[in-house]
Protein backbone atom coordinates (compact mmCIF):
# COMPACT_ATOMS: atom_id res chain seq x y z
CA UNK A 1 0.00 0.00 0.00
CA UNK A 2 2.77 2.39 0.91
CA UNK A 3 4.31 1.83 -2.47
CA UNK A 4 1.08 2.57 -4.26
CA UNK A 5 0.74 5.79 -2.33
CA UNK A 6 4.26 6.91 -3.08
CA UNK A 7 3.78 6.11 -6.76
CA UNK A 8 0.54 7.97 -6.72
CA UNK A 9 2.08 11.06 -5.14
CA UNK A 10 4.93 11.03 -7.55
CA UNK A 11 2.65 10.71 -10.52
CA UNK A 12 0.20 13.30 -9.34
CA UNK A 13 2.97 15.77 -8.57
CA UNK A 14 0.65 17.46 -6.19
CA UNK A 15 3.45 18.45 -3.84
CA UNK A 16 5.53 20.27 -6.32
CA UNK A 17 3.03 21.66 -8.73
CA UNK A 18 2.90 25.43 -8.93
CA UNK A 19 -0.48 26.55 -7.76
CA UNK A 20 -2.22 29.53 -9.16
CA UNK A 21 -5.73 30.69 -9.75
CA UNK A 22 -7.78 28.51 -11.99
CA UNK A 23 -8.59 30.13 -15.23
CA UNK A 24 -12.19 30.92 -15.79
CA UNK A 25 -13.95 27.84 -16.85
CA UNK A 26 -14.26 27.55 -20.59
CA UNK A 27 -15.40 24.89 -22.94
CA UNK A 28 -19.16 24.70 -22.57
CA UNK A 29 -19.18 22.50 -25.66
CA UNK A 30 -16.98 19.99 -23.86
CA UNK A 31 -19.39 19.94 -20.96
CA UNK A 32 -22.34 19.36 -23.25
CA UNK A 33 -20.48 16.47 -24.81
CA UNK A 34 -19.62 15.17 -21.36
CA UNK A 35 -23.23 15.37 -20.26
CA UNK A 36 -24.22 13.46 -23.36
CA UNK A 37 -21.68 10.63 -23.04
CA UNK A 38 -22.14 10.30 -19.28
CA UNK A 39 -25.92 10.57 -19.51
CA UNK A 40 -27.98 9.17 -22.37
CA UNK A 41 -25.08 7.33 -23.98
CA UNK A 42 -24.23 5.62 -20.70
CA UNK A 43 -27.81 4.43 -20.48
CA UNK A 44 -27.65 3.13 -24.01
CA UNK A 45 -24.35 1.36 -23.35
CA UNK A 46 -25.52 -0.31 -20.15
CA UNK A 47 -28.79 -1.39 -21.71
CA UNK A 48 -27.06 -2.81 -24.78
CA UNK A 49 -24.55 -4.55 -22.54
CA UNK A 50 -27.07 -6.21 -20.25
CA UNK A 51 -29.70 -6.94 -22.88
CA UNK A 52 -27.00 -8.05 -25.33
CA UNK A 53 -25.46 -10.44 -22.82
CA UNK A 54 -28.84 -11.84 -21.94
CA UNK A 55 -29.72 -12.17 -25.61
CA UNK A 56 -26.52 -14.04 -26.44
CA UNK A 57 -26.91 -16.39 -23.50
CA UNK A 58 -30.55 -17.10 -24.17
CA UNK A 59 -29.88 -17.61 -27.85
CA UNK A 60 -27.15 -20.14 -27.25
CA UNK A 61 -29.33 -22.02 -24.77
CA UNK A 62 -32.24 -22.01 -27.20
CA UNK A 63 -29.89 -23.34 -29.85
CA UNK A 64 -28.80 -26.10 -27.50
CA UNK A 65 -32.43 -26.84 -26.81
CA UNK A 66 -33.29 -26.96 -30.48
CA UNK A 67 -30.39 -28.94 -31.86
CA UNK A 68 -28.15 -30.38 -29.20
CA UNK A 69 -30.46 -31.21 -26.37
CA UNK A 70 -28.26 -34.12 -25.41
CA UNK A 71 -25.80 -31.60 -23.98
CA UNK A 72 -28.11 -31.10 -21.01
CA UNK A 73 -28.07 -34.80 -20.25
CA UNK A 74 -24.31 -34.72 -19.78
CA UNK A 75 -24.12 -31.54 -17.72
CA UNK A 76 -23.20 -32.08 -14.11
CA UNK A 77 -22.91 -29.35 -11.50
CA UNK A 78 -20.24 -31.22 -9.64
CA UNK A 79 -17.96 -31.77 -12.61
CA UNK A 80 -18.70 -28.33 -14.09
CA UNK A 81 -17.51 -26.60 -10.96
CA UNK A 82 -14.65 -29.00 -10.48
CA UNK A 83 -13.37 -27.98 -13.90
CA UNK A 84 -14.12 -24.27 -13.58
CA UNK A 85 -12.52 -24.17 -10.15
CA UNK A 86 -9.29 -25.64 -11.43
CA UNK A 87 -9.11 -23.17 -14.27
CA UNK A 88 -9.85 -20.05 -12.20
CA UNK A 89 -7.07 -20.81 -9.76
CA UNK A 90 -3.62 -19.76 -10.93
CA UNK A 91 -1.24 -22.69 -11.40
CA UNK A 92 -3.94 -25.25 -10.62
CA UNK A 93 -3.78 -26.72 -14.13
CA UNK A 94 -0.94 -28.26 -16.11
CA UNK A 95 -1.13 -25.59 -18.75
CA UNK A 96 -1.07 -22.72 -16.26
CA UNK A 97 2.05 -24.26 -14.74
CA UNK A 98 3.60 -24.56 -18.19
CA UNK A 99 3.28 -20.80 -18.75
CA UNK A 100 4.02 -19.13 -15.42
CA UNK A 101 4.50 -15.60 -16.73
CA UNK A 102 1.41 -15.68 -18.89
CA UNK A 103 -0.55 -17.15 -16.00
CA UNK A 104 0.41 -14.38 -13.62
CA UNK A 105 -0.28 -11.73 -16.25
CA UNK A 106 -3.60 -13.14 -17.38
CA UNK A 107 -4.91 -13.57 -13.84
CA UNK A 108 -3.72 -10.13 -12.75
CA UNK A 109 -5.20 -8.69 -15.92
CA UNK A 110 -8.63 -10.26 -15.58
CA UNK A 111 -8.93 -9.57 -11.87
CA UNK A 112 -7.93 -5.93 -12.27
CA UNK A 113 -10.04 -5.55 -15.39
CA UNK A 114 -13.19 -6.53 -13.52
CA UNK A 115 -12.46 -5.10 -10.05
CA UNK A 116 -11.13 -1.71 -11.12
CA UNK A 117 -14.20 -0.22 -12.78
CA UNK A 118 -16.61 -1.66 -10.24
CA UNK A 119 -14.81 -0.46 -7.13
CA UNK A 120 -13.42 2.85 -8.35
CA UNK A 121 -14.70 5.68 -6.16
CA UNK A 122 -15.46 8.06 -9.03
CA UNK A 123 -17.63 5.46 -10.73
CA UNK A 124 -19.43 4.69 -7.50
CA UNK A 125 -20.09 8.39 -6.96
CA UNK A 126 -21.57 8.72 -10.43
CA UNK A 127 -23.79 5.67 -9.95
CA UNK A 128 -24.82 6.98 -6.54
CA UNK A 129 -25.79 10.31 -8.07
CA UNK A 130 -27.72 8.64 -10.89
CA UNK A 131 -29.33 5.66 -9.23
CA UNK A 132 -28.65 6.14 -5.50
CA UNK A 133 -26.86 2.83 -5.25
CA UNK A 134 -23.44 2.62 -3.73
CA UNK A 135 -20.97 0.19 -2.27
CA UNK A 136 -17.53 0.28 -0.81
CA UNK A 137 -14.65 1.51 -2.88
CA UNK A 138 -10.96 0.86 -3.19
CA UNK A 139 -8.42 3.62 -2.51
CA UNK A 140 -7.62 5.57 -5.64
CA UNK A 141 -3.93 4.83 -5.32
CA UNK A 142 -4.59 1.09 -5.43
CA UNK A 143 -6.99 1.43 -8.33
CA UNK A 144 -4.39 3.38 -10.26
CA UNK A 145 -1.85 0.65 -9.65
CA UNK A 146 -4.41 -1.87 -10.90
CA UNK A 147 -5.03 0.29 -13.95
CA UNK A 148 -1.32 0.17 -14.67
CA UNK A 149 -1.48 -3.61 -14.34
CA UNK A 150 -4.23 -3.76 -16.94
CA UNK A 151 -2.35 -1.49 -19.32
CA UNK A 152 0.87 -3.42 -18.77
CA UNK A 153 -0.92 -6.71 -19.38
CA UNK A 154 -2.39 -5.39 -22.61
CA UNK A 155 1.09 -4.48 -23.74
CA UNK A 156 2.25 -7.97 -22.77
CA UNK A 157 -0.58 -9.53 -24.78
CA UNK A 158 0.21 -7.29 -27.72
CA UNK A 159 3.88 -8.25 -27.69
CA UNK A 160 2.95 -11.90 -27.31
CA UNK A 161 0.70 -11.64 -30.34
CA UNK A 162 3.46 -9.98 -32.32
CA UNK A 163 6.40 -12.20 -31.48
CA UNK A 164 5.12 -15.59 -30.39
CA UNK A 165 4.76 -17.66 -33.59
CA UNK A 166 1.91 -19.87 -32.42
CA UNK A 167 -0.10 -16.81 -31.38
CA UNK A 168 0.92 -14.68 -34.32
CA UNK A 169 -0.23 -17.42 -36.71
CA UNK A 170 -3.81 -17.29 -35.43
CA UNK A 171 -3.95 -13.51 -34.98
CA UNK A 172 -6.34 -11.41 -37.03
CA UNK A 173 -7.00 -7.68 -37.14
CA UNK A 174 -9.96 -8.34 -34.87
CA UNK A 175 -7.61 -9.57 -32.15
CA UNK A 176 -5.78 -6.25 -32.09
CA UNK A 177 -9.05 -4.38 -32.18
CA UNK A 178 -10.52 -6.16 -29.18
CA UNK A 179 -7.26 -5.69 -27.32
CA UNK A 180 -7.44 -1.97 -28.08
CA UNK A 181 -11.09 -1.84 -27.03
CA UNK A 182 -10.12 -3.26 -23.66
CA UNK A 183 -7.00 -1.15 -23.19
CA UNK A 184 -8.59 2.17 -24.20
CA UNK A 185 -10.76 2.83 -21.13
CA UNK A 186 -7.81 2.16 -18.87
CA UNK A 187 -5.33 4.30 -20.77
CA UNK A 188 -7.74 7.21 -21.03
CA UNK A 189 -8.87 6.73 -17.44
CA UNK A 190 -5.30 6.87 -16.31
CA UNK A 191 -4.63 10.03 -18.29
CA UNK A 192 -7.81 11.57 -17.03
CA UNK A 193 -7.00 10.77 -13.42
CA UNK A 194 -3.61 12.42 -13.45
CA UNK A 195 -4.72 15.45 -15.47
CA UNK A 196 -1.37 16.00 -17.12
CA UNK A 197 -2.88 17.45 -20.26
CA UNK A 198 -6.09 17.39 -22.20
CA UNK A 199 -8.09 16.50 -19.10
CA UNK A 200 -11.52 17.09 -20.61
CA UNK A 201 -10.74 15.26 -23.82
CA UNK A 202 -9.39 12.26 -21.95
CA UNK A 203 -12.35 12.18 -19.61
CA UNK A 204 -14.81 12.16 -22.48
CA UNK A 205 -12.73 9.58 -24.36
CA UNK A 206 -12.57 7.53 -21.19
CA UNK A 207 -16.32 7.35 -20.85
CA UNK A 208 -16.77 6.79 -24.55
CA UNK A 209 -14.23 3.97 -24.71
CA UNK A 210 -15.76 2.37 -21.63
CA UNK A 211 -19.11 2.41 -23.35
CA UNK A 212 -17.62 0.95 -26.51
CA UNK A 213 -16.17 -1.88 -24.45
CA UNK A 214 -19.50 -2.58 -22.77
CA UNK A 215 -21.28 -2.66 -26.10
CA UNK A 216 -18.54 -4.80 -27.65
CA UNK A 217 -18.60 -7.50 -24.96
CA UNK A 218 -21.72 -9.35 -26.11
CA UNK A 219 -21.04 -8.96 -29.83
CA UNK A 220 -17.33 -9.69 -30.23
CA UNK A 221 -15.08 -12.47 -29.02
CA UNK A 222 -15.00 -10.56 -25.73
CA UNK A 223 -18.12 -12.66 -25.25
CA UNK A 224 -15.78 -15.31 -23.92
CA UNK A 225 -16.74 -13.58 -20.70
CA UNK A 226 -20.20 -15.13 -21.15
CA UNK A 227 -19.43 -18.37 -22.92
CA UNK A 228 -16.21 -19.61 -21.40
CA UNK A 229 -17.89 -20.78 -18.19
CA UNK A 230 -20.35 -22.72 -20.34
CA UNK A 231 -17.76 -24.35 -22.59
CA UNK A 232 -15.59 -25.12 -19.59
CA UNK A 233 -18.53 -26.57 -17.69
CA UNK A 234 -19.48 -28.79 -20.61
CA UNK A 235 -15.95 -30.08 -21.08
CA UNK A 236 -15.69 -30.57 -17.32
CA UNK A 237 -18.92 -32.57 -17.32
CA UNK A 238 -17.80 -34.73 -20.23
CA UNK A 239 -14.43 -35.41 -18.65
CA UNK A 240 -15.88 -36.02 -15.21
CA UNK A 241 -19.01 -37.95 -16.05
CA UNK A 242 -18.11 -39.89 -19.18
CA UNK A 243 -14.36 -39.88 -19.60
CA UNK A 244 -13.46 -40.21 -15.91
CA UNK A 245 -10.36 -38.14 -16.54
CA UNK A 246 -9.00 -34.81 -15.45
CA UNK A 247 -9.40 -31.87 -17.81
CA UNK A 248 -6.91 -29.53 -16.20
Amino acid at each position, binding site marked *: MIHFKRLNDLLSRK*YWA*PVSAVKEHKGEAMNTLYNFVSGPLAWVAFIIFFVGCLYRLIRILVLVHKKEKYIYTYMSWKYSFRSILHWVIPFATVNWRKHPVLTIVTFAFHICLIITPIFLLSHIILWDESWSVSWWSLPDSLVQAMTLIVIGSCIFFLIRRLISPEVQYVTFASDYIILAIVAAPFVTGFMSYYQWFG*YQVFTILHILSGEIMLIAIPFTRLSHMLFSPLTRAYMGSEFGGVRHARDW
Partner: protein
Amino acid sequence: MKKCFPILLLLLTVSLFFLVYAYSQEDMRFINAEAFENPQRPPTVFNHDEHNELAQIEECNECHHIYDKEGKRVEDESSEDQSCSDCHEPKASGRKPALMKAFHINCKGCHKEKGKGPVMCGQCHVRRPNVED
Protein backbone atom coordinates in the same frame (compact mmCIF):
# COMPACT_ATOMS: atom_id res chain seq x y z
CA MET B 1 21.37 4.32 -3.39
CA LYS B 2 24.35 6.36 -4.47
CA LYS B 3 22.97 6.71 -7.95
CA CYS B 4 19.64 7.91 -6.65
CA PHE B 5 21.10 10.60 -4.50
CA PRO B 6 21.65 13.33 -7.11
CA ILE B 7 18.18 12.72 -8.52
CA LEU B 8 16.63 12.96 -5.09
CA LEU B 9 18.55 16.17 -4.38
CA LEU B 10 17.36 17.67 -7.61
CA LEU B 11 13.79 16.64 -6.93
CA LEU B 12 13.94 18.09 -3.44
CA THR B 13 15.26 21.43 -4.67
CA VAL B 14 12.66 21.67 -7.37
CA SER B 15 9.82 20.78 -5.05
CA LEU B 16 10.97 23.26 -2.43
CA PHE B 17 11.00 25.94 -5.06
CA PHE B 18 7.49 25.13 -6.15
CA LEU B 19 6.21 24.81 -2.62
CA VAL B 20 7.42 28.27 -1.75
CA TYR B 21 5.95 29.56 -4.96
CA ALA B 22 2.65 27.87 -4.20
CA TYR B 23 2.24 29.32 -0.78
CA SER B 24 2.94 32.80 -2.05
CA GLN B 25 -0.29 32.77 -4.03
CA GLU B 26 -2.94 34.32 -1.85
CA ASP B 27 -5.95 34.57 -4.07
CA MET B 28 -6.24 30.78 -4.22
CA ARG B 29 -9.16 29.17 -2.38
CA PHE B 30 -10.14 25.60 -1.82
CA ILE B 31 -13.29 24.12 -0.37
CA ASN B 32 -12.58 23.10 3.19
CA ALA B 33 -12.16 19.35 3.05
CA GLU B 34 -11.01 18.76 6.61
CA ALA B 35 -14.14 16.82 7.44
CA PHE B 36 -13.08 14.07 5.03
CA GLU B 37 -11.01 11.34 6.44
CA ASN B 38 -8.47 10.13 3.95
CA PRO B 39 -9.70 12.09 0.93
CA GLN B 40 -8.98 10.45 -2.42
CA ARG B 41 -9.01 13.56 -4.57
CA PRO B 42 -7.40 16.98 -4.19
CA PRO B 43 -9.69 19.54 -2.53
CA THR B 44 -12.01 21.41 -4.82
CA VAL B 45 -10.73 24.61 -6.30
CA PHE B 46 -13.23 27.29 -5.40
CA ASN B 47 -13.01 31.06 -5.37
CA HIS B 48 -16.11 32.15 -3.51
CA ASP B 49 -16.44 35.73 -4.69
CA GLU B 50 -15.36 35.10 -8.23
CA HIS B 51 -17.82 32.20 -8.48
CA ASN B 52 -20.76 34.24 -7.23
CA GLU B 53 -19.91 37.15 -9.43
CA LEU B 54 -19.71 34.95 -12.51
CA ALA B 55 -22.80 32.99 -11.57
CA GLN B 56 -24.64 36.16 -10.56
CA ILE B 57 -25.68 34.71 -7.22
CA GLU B 58 -27.13 37.24 -4.83
CA GLU B 59 -28.68 35.12 -2.09
CA CYS B 60 -26.46 33.16 0.27
CA ASN B 61 -29.05 30.40 0.64
CA GLU B 62 -28.85 29.53 -3.02
CA CYS B 63 -26.06 27.30 -1.81
CA HIS B 64 -26.12 27.57 1.98
CA HIS B 65 -29.51 25.95 2.32
CA ILE B 66 -31.54 24.90 5.35
CA TYR B 67 -33.94 21.97 5.36
CA ASP B 68 -36.56 21.43 8.06
CA LYS B 69 -37.33 18.19 9.80
CA GLU B 70 -39.80 17.12 7.14
CA GLY B 71 -37.10 17.53 4.54
CA LYS B 72 -38.59 20.70 3.06
CA ARG B 73 -36.30 23.48 2.08
CA VAL B 74 -36.82 26.55 4.26
CA GLU B 75 -37.02 29.71 2.19
CA ASP B 76 -35.49 32.91 3.53
CA GLU B 77 -33.14 31.13 5.87
CA SER B 78 -29.55 30.38 5.22
CA SER B 79 -26.69 28.54 6.80
CA GLU B 80 -23.62 30.48 5.79
CA ASP B 81 -22.64 30.78 9.42
CA GLN B 82 -22.12 27.02 9.64
CA SER B 83 -19.88 24.47 8.01
CA CYS B 84 -21.48 22.11 5.57
CA SER B 85 -20.20 19.29 7.75
CA ASP B 86 -22.16 20.59 10.72
CA CYS B 87 -25.27 19.08 9.18
CA HIS B 88 -23.96 16.62 6.61
CA GLU B 89 -22.17 13.76 8.22
CA PRO B 90 -19.76 11.45 6.43
CA LYS B 91 -22.62 8.97 6.10
CA ALA B 92 -26.12 9.65 4.85
CA SER B 93 -28.93 9.65 7.42
CA GLY B 94 -32.49 9.38 6.28
CA ARG B 95 -33.04 11.67 3.34
CA LYS B 96 -30.09 13.83 4.26
CA PRO B 97 -27.24 13.03 1.92
CA ALA B 98 -23.74 12.32 3.10
CA LEU B 99 -21.28 15.18 3.03
CA MET B 100 -19.58 14.20 -0.18
CA LYS B 101 -22.78 13.59 -2.04
CA ALA B 102 -24.16 16.86 -0.66
CA PHE B 103 -21.22 18.74 -2.13
CA HIS B 104 -21.59 17.00 -5.44
CA ILE B 105 -25.32 17.58 -5.66
CA ASN B 106 -25.02 21.17 -4.55
CA CYS B 107 -22.28 22.13 -6.99
CA LYS B 108 -22.59 19.78 -9.93
CA GLY B 109 -26.35 19.61 -9.69
CA CYS B 110 -26.60 23.34 -10.18
CA HIS B 111 -23.95 23.39 -12.89
CA LYS B 112 -25.82 20.77 -14.84
CA GLU B 113 -29.13 22.46 -14.33
CA LYS B 114 -27.84 25.82 -15.51
CA GLY B 115 -25.66 24.33 -18.20
CA LYS B 116 -22.78 26.34 -16.85
CA GLY B 117 -19.75 25.59 -14.75
CA PRO B 118 -17.62 22.49 -14.35
CA VAL B 119 -19.17 19.03 -14.33
CA MET B 120 -16.29 16.59 -14.77
CA CYS B 121 -14.48 15.26 -11.69
CA GLY B 122 -11.16 16.80 -12.50
CA GLN B 123 -12.53 20.21 -13.35
CA CYS B 124 -13.09 20.86 -9.63
CA HIS B 125 -10.66 18.37 -8.12
CA VAL B 126 -7.76 19.93 -9.92
CA ARG B 127 -4.36 18.36 -9.39
CA ARG B 128 -2.25 21.24 -10.60
CA PRO B 129 -4.48 24.26 -10.53
CA ASN B 130 -2.12 26.39 -12.64
CA VAL B 131 -2.68 24.32 -15.73
CA GLU B 132 -5.41 25.36 -18.04
CA ASP B 133 -7.94 22.61 -18.02
